[in-house]
């Protein structure tokens, strides 16, 4: 009953969000209204079929705790790179290029994570994603080299986990 698990996790997340945003723990009326809102949201998501593992990948959180700090480090480095290119520090200059990379992820969540991680690091933007081929627009040559190294691709592949078989992307679909 995987849907039930996702419903529980969504209920938990929404309740925590409500309490954090309202800040009133001892106010019966507000807690009651919050409970009604949460239940309504969960029921509507259930009816709309949003409670699948693509929309709400609970089981990836723990791997994410290791992946996101690495992504944060990459974002910091990429920001410095782009900032240098913009102000022309040390002869750096913007050098826009377009190129393709192949994404080796097997699940839709993994592919989306990879494409969004590429976009999130400044200097590279995923312009198009067709099948497993991502078209990238890069601002600096450093960004091109960083992506061509394939480190992010490997890490996202680890992040998605390979044991999950649903949501496969057809191989070589371009």
């Amino acid at each position: 009953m995987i849907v039930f698990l996702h419903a529980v996790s969504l209920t938990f997340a929404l309740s925590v969000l409500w309490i954090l945003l309202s800040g009133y723990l001892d106010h019966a009326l507000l807690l009651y209204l919050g409970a009604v809102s949460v239940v309504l949201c969960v029921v509507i998501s259930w009816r709309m079929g949003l409670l699948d593992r693509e929309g709400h990948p609970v089981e990836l959180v723990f791997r994410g705790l290791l992946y996101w700090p690495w992504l944060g480090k990459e974002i910091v480095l990429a920001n410095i790179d782009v900032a240098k290119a913009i102000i022309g520090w040390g002869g750096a200059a913007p050098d826009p290029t377009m190129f393709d990379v192949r994404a080796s992820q097997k699940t839709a969540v993994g592919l989306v994570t990879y494409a969004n991680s590429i976009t999130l690091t400044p200097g590279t933007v995923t312009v198009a994603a067709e099948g497993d081929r991502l078209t990238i627009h890069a601002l600096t040559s450093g960004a091109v080299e960083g992506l061509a190294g394939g480190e992010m691709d490997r890490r996202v592949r680890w992040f998605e986990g390979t044991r999950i078989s649903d949501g496969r992307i057809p191989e070589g679909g371009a």
Partner: protein
Amino acid sequence: MIELVLDAVTALFLLAGCILLLIGGFGLLRLPDAFARLHAAGMIDTLGLALILVGLMFQAGLTLVTVKLGLIAVFVLYTSPVVSHALARAALAGGFRPGARHVVLPDPSSPKSLPSGSGEGRAP
């Protein structure tokens, strides 16, 4: 004493964030076309925003304000790549061609063989 340290840390983060934001804003004006400016906007959306929010978090201490600042950062960090991608895609679909060289990476399946420079196999 601890107040002073927190103030100093906040000032440091805010200073770094403001410098990044200013460079990003400068990039919005200076870079040649919309695709290149996407990267400058990306700087504002990622590290500039994160640094300033983290700086404010040190000032807020362990309160709900910190949680809200964190939520803002998480929301923006989740949505900003989607926006950038949608914008780039819409621009490409609308027939806007970026002024960029096209580069073919050597072989995507064996990423070990890196190009030492960026200009490998350039196409017009």
